[in-house]
């Protein structure tokens, strides 16, 4: 039984996972307060009315409010729109203009969901925060480790690598040791209205997951300057034309408008020359990458470091070495990896624990 004098802020999206997280926090004996973060408003251009995106919708907020009310818990909606715009959305659009592919949800987790929410603890006279992520925080003596969730299918630890380590001791992840099936069962036992509603996988600020249209509306003056350009082969020969380099991501196959006997993929985006380089699937393989913006969950003294690298959310993890050259970090993969994409996150695991992570560079 936890200290019932402790008060926990539970981040509620209105979906089944965060609702069950709230139930678990209460079962642990804490006093809970539900908070929903308002991060964005999309407006319909014609009517100027707010259109709610999946993960931020009125339905979701009302869902969270209903669950809190049922459990006798206070609920507040906190407006973080300005912070979200400066820390997450601006970065998202800048990254695309630099020909990179960002992970806005990871940035949002560290800078908004954790940092901003922990800054609110004082206001609520609360001690900790909790979220419905499938990941675990394990305590060894006085150290805290961020580990994979028990449910391998749902593990979300990859999304949390950028969180400041010092926040781990103020965080509860009640779903870390649960499977999605367990979570649904609890939701059904409690007859939660949203028992069968899934957490959204879409970007909350992008309507219909159409990021190209989003960029068009968010920074029209910059998008205007993005012109058509050449699609080139690895040898530099022109094989077609593209509609503006921000419309493409590394590894993309569809929508290139090319006809080759074998499929071609986007290998490289070269904003300075306004070119897109394509290759066969093998051409997407690479042995290494540079890593920037490192965040450590464990203190590492000895390099090179052997670890399992995840370069995307649902990847298995690949054996790799992390090399430190005068505080510049490079990752060498034991086997070549497909579409190692600049701007995406690379997360270092040893067994179940996250050692650290960073952003993939060229």
């Amino acid at each position, binding site marked *: 039984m936890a200290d019932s004098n402790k008060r926990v802020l539970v981040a509620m999206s209105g979906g089944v996972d965060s609702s069950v997280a709230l139930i678990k926090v209460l079962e642990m004996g804490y006093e809970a*307060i539900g908070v929903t973060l*308002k991060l964005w408003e999309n407006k319909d251009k014609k009517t100027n009315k707010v259109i709610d995106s999946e993960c931020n919708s009125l339905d979701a907020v009302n869902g969270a409010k209903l669950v809190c009310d049922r459990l006798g818990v*206070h609920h*507040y*909606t906190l*407006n973080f729109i300005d912070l979200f715009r400066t820390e997450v959305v601006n970065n998202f659009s800048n990254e695309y203009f630099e020909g990179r592919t960002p992970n806005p949800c990871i940035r949002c987790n560290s800078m908004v969901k954790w940092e901003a929410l922990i800054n*609110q603890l*004082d*206001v*609520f*006279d609360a001690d900790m925060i909790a979220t419905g992520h499938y990941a675990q925080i394990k305590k060894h003596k006085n150290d805290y480790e961020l580990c994979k969730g028990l449910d391998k299918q749902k593990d979300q630890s990859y999304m949390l690598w950028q969180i400041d380590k010092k926040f781990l001791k103020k965080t509860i992840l009640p779903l870390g040791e649960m499977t999605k099936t367990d979570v649904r069962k609890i939701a059904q036992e409690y007859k939660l209205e949203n028992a069968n509603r899934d957490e959204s996988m879409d970007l909350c600020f992008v309507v219909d997951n159409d990021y190209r249209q989003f960029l068009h509306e968010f920074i029209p003056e910059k998008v205007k300057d993005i012109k058509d350009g050449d699609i080139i082969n690895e040898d530099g020969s022109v094989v077609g034309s593209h509609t503006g380099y921000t419309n493409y991501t590394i590894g993309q196959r569809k929508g290139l408008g090319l006809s080759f006997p074998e499929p071609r993929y986007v290998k490289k985006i070269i904003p300075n020359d306004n070119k897109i380089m394509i290759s066969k699937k093998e051409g997407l393989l690479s042995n290494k990458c540079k890593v920037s913006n490192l965040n450590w969950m464990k203190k590492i003294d000895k390099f090179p470091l052997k670890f399992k690298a995840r370069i995307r959310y649902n990847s298995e993890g690949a054996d790799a070495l992390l090399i430190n050259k005068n505080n510049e970090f490079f990752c060498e993969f034991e086997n070549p990896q497909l579409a190692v994409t600049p701007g995406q996150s690379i997360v270092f695991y040893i067994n179940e624990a996250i050692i650290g992570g960073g952003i993939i560079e060229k």
Partner: protein
Amino acid sequence: MKKVYCDISATTPTNHEVVDLMATIQKSVFGNPSSIHKYGQESHAIIEKSRIQVATALGCNQEEIIFTGSGTEANNIALEGFIKPKDHVISTSYEHPSVINVLKSLESRGTALSFIKPNKNGKIDIKSIESLISKNTKLVSVMLVNNELGSVNDIKKISEIVKNNNITLHVDAVQCVGKIPINLKELRIDLMSLSAHKFYGPKGIGALFIRKGIDLKTTINGGGQELNLRPGTENISAIAGLGLAISKAYKNINQNIEYVKNLENIFIKQLDKYKIDYVLHIKDRLPGVLAIGFPNIDGQSLLIALDLKGVAVSFGSACSSGTTKASQILLDSGISEDLAKSTLRISFGKIHSEEDVLYVAKQLFDIIKRLKNG
């Protein structure tokens, strides 16, 4: 935990005698007031009794009162019903959305509008109204008490100027009916809106005063009820609730005002005793309504922290809550953006005791100390 509801300006708890009356009517009276038979007559009598109660409380004739679904609906019926496309209308920038948004909609259909901002006392300068009057000015719409500031406009003087220029005056009195005396015999108001839930009556029922001789066109079409201005089968129990609530509100109005003013003084003295840094924005205000800034403290954070201690107040008006932007109304009345973001509306009423207001002051003291040290 002790609970103190200090958001009387947002809504009031329904008086229990009013609840009992409404429950009795709900259980036993169901006839359609338009029916000729006895069932209908019984329902009809309840409505007319309530109309007399409203007319008595406000000093007007019962034929001059129609019941509406809310204060918002009363404002809509008055403005949409009176204003014609080519008219010029003078109003204020701090009206309730049920006035501002109707006027903006009319503007898109050809009406000319002038909006006046409040002065630093939260009032509308009479000279500003005078200077905007032109030969096309057909209506002036000014709220009696502002919902966020609690400031009271000098409606008597405004009505005199309006009358001298042969212009019609609409007054949104939702915030203050039942809280200060209003005598429509003395005040030359032509159209006035009110809402029962602001004076310990039920929600979902309001009324509009329409001075004899003022012609409103029908904006909702139906079976002709309420002078064909608010057709639809009447909500009998809510109408009865409004009638009883307004009678009760005006029964001891002067005593209630003194009582609430005294609570306010006790509260302010206690803030001084705790040496809390505060700015009281409006001097001449509706008794019990305090727009009060706590410098360097985030208003929304303070609201949440108070709520967790059982004290309910508001930040901005209830209708625009949910945003952390500074209230435009506070900014318009000359309050700096920082101070506006630190401003709460604390509203006391006759339901409160001395112990209640002392509890609120103590919670403010504890929370502000914590947030400053945090």
